[in-house]
């Protein structure tokens, strides 16, 4: 962690992340206007009253942007956590026991890795009623396979280490060994991977929202782009409607991804630069 923050790229990504997290928490409070309030200023360009212009119903784009950060970030992180928990559990149990358990989990992972994620998410989201929880569950359930693979590989080396044999000599059960010795030793890798999944999940949320499969009740960056698109903002030259949320998504995903890569570089021995 300290090594990541020591680099300029690390400071930058951490700074952007912190800023977005702040907006996610306090966005509703610092938004200058009610993001849903309509007015007669329809699709106005940026002005002093509306720093980022207005929507087709005259709502303030900046306010929507600030409020929408929360959904994007909550969905991104919550889905990543679900994906990490499933991936870690399957990776640890499969890697530790080996044999048919491992082969069964491996096939399941293959299945999820091979099926294109977006269409699968679209189908799942379509089947269920769109809400924030469904969105989180759908993204989380479709993105764990990579984590499972990486954790399994790490567990294969961990379980051969002497301290695991010692734990067995202590009279520890398999469950105890996995929980107390394997999991903590694999945790940095799981964490690094989860950060990378956050980036994927944020993009996935935006994509689903853009396809109209998001939660219709809430404002997110993805739903803003969708609304703007529906309202014909791009052809009307109303760039202020779709460019800011797009830029925010790009910047957040970039920062999260960069942070994740830097962190992974520290904890994944195969990525360590030789000095």
């Amino acid at each position, binding site marked *: 962690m300290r090594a990541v923050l020591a680099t300029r790229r690390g400071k930058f990504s951490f700074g952007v992340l912190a800023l977005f997290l702040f907006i996610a928490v306090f966005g509703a409070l610092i938004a200058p206007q009610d993001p849903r309030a309509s007015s007669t200023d329809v699709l106005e360009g940026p002005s002093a009253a509306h720093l980022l212009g207005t929507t087709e119903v005259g709502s303030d784009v900046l306010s929507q942007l600030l409020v929408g950060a929360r959904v994007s970030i909550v969905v991104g992180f919550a889905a990543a956590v679900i994906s990490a928990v499933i991936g870690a559990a399957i990776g640890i149990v499969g890697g530790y026991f080996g044999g048919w358990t491992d082969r069964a989990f491996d096939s399941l992972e293959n299945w999820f890795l091979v099926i294109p994620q977006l269409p699968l998410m679209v189908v799942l989201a379509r089947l269920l009623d769109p809400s924030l929880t469904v969105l989180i569950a759908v993204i989380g359930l479709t993105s764990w396979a990579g984590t499972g693979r990486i954790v399994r590989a790490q567990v294969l080396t961990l379980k051969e280490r*002497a301290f695991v044999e*010692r*734990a067995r000599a202590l*009279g*520890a*059960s398999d469950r105890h060994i996995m929980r107390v010795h394997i999991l903590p*030793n694999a*945790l940095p890798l799981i964490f690094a991977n989860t950060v990378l999944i956050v980036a994927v999940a944020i993009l996935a949320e935006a994509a689903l929202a853009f396809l109209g499969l998001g939660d219709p009740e809430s404002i997110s960056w993805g739903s803003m782009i969708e609304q703007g698109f529906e309202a014909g903002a791009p052809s009307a030259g109303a760039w202020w409607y779709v460019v800011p949320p797009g830029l925010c998504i790009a910047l957040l995903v970039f920062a999260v991804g960069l942070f994740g890569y830097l962190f992974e570089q520290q904890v994944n021995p195969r990525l360590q630069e030789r000095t």
Partner: protein
Amino acid sequence: MSLLEIEGLEVRHRGQPIVAGVDLAVEPGEALGLAGESGCGKTTTALAIMKLLPPALEPSGTITLRPPGTDEPVRIDRRTERGMQLVRWRHVSLVFQGAMNALDPVQRVDRQILEAIRLHEPRAGKLGGRIKELLNTVGLTSAHGRAYPHQLSGGQRQRAMIALALACRPALVIADEPTTALDVIMQAQVLELLERLRTELGLALILISHDLAVLAEACDRLAVMYAGRIVESGPAEQVFRAPQHPYTKRLLDSLPVIGGARGVADPIPGTPPDPHDPPEGCTFRPRCPYAADVCLEEPALREVASGQRAACHFAPWEPESWAVRRPGGTP
């Protein structure tokens, strides 16, 4: 009644014995030394006692443990995995070969000692005092307990490992090459520590090492293993002074003598036999300078001096006969 009794222990790998016909007994409070070169089956025997052999190795024979305070002997060879979890560490603990790797790198030392106690005494109350006492016993402080393994030196980690081995007050501690990765000073300290703990706590010890001199000093009895078999056993002093098997003799000759004449160490030529292609007769025959035709028959382990047993057709050996008896002679 012996604390531990091993009868006819055999461990097979793909049908071939890695350990064959090992009989051992350890009395309460006794230190038994298990000697032999790499791959002779010392560690395999130790792991068989804990029932921790890798799945590819199949053990047979009986291993009986009689923990003090219980009437019921524990038949380790018949225990299930679940049943073994209750025996491991509670009655028999193991100081691992290369103890530095046997500590979990992401947990503080005192946490790992606590883990061992909690596994066997889940209802125990506060254990801070007991852990401190354990650390003090091996010459460490609470500050060492709060450290992560990588923050300790090799000797300190070895001591922490020994403290861990004592955590559940077992009747028997198996120490597998406990001094191998340490410098000579630390070796002496660790051996002294084990010796002291044995007399103070009355625990029995199986000390595994390739270093006969170390074993002779620290143990009451010695068993020398070669190619999975015990070739000689007896009182430590006696085996060290008057070996009755050419392998033991050669092993002792290969040791450098401090203060002795400066010369070239006298190594044993050749390598131990491949367990998948064992030699006919005595397993030491191909490397033995005294081998004769009779050695094509496998020698039995028999008593050749009081309390001393050797598996050699030529035993008992008189001290002078080592030099006199020519290679290829008759018994």
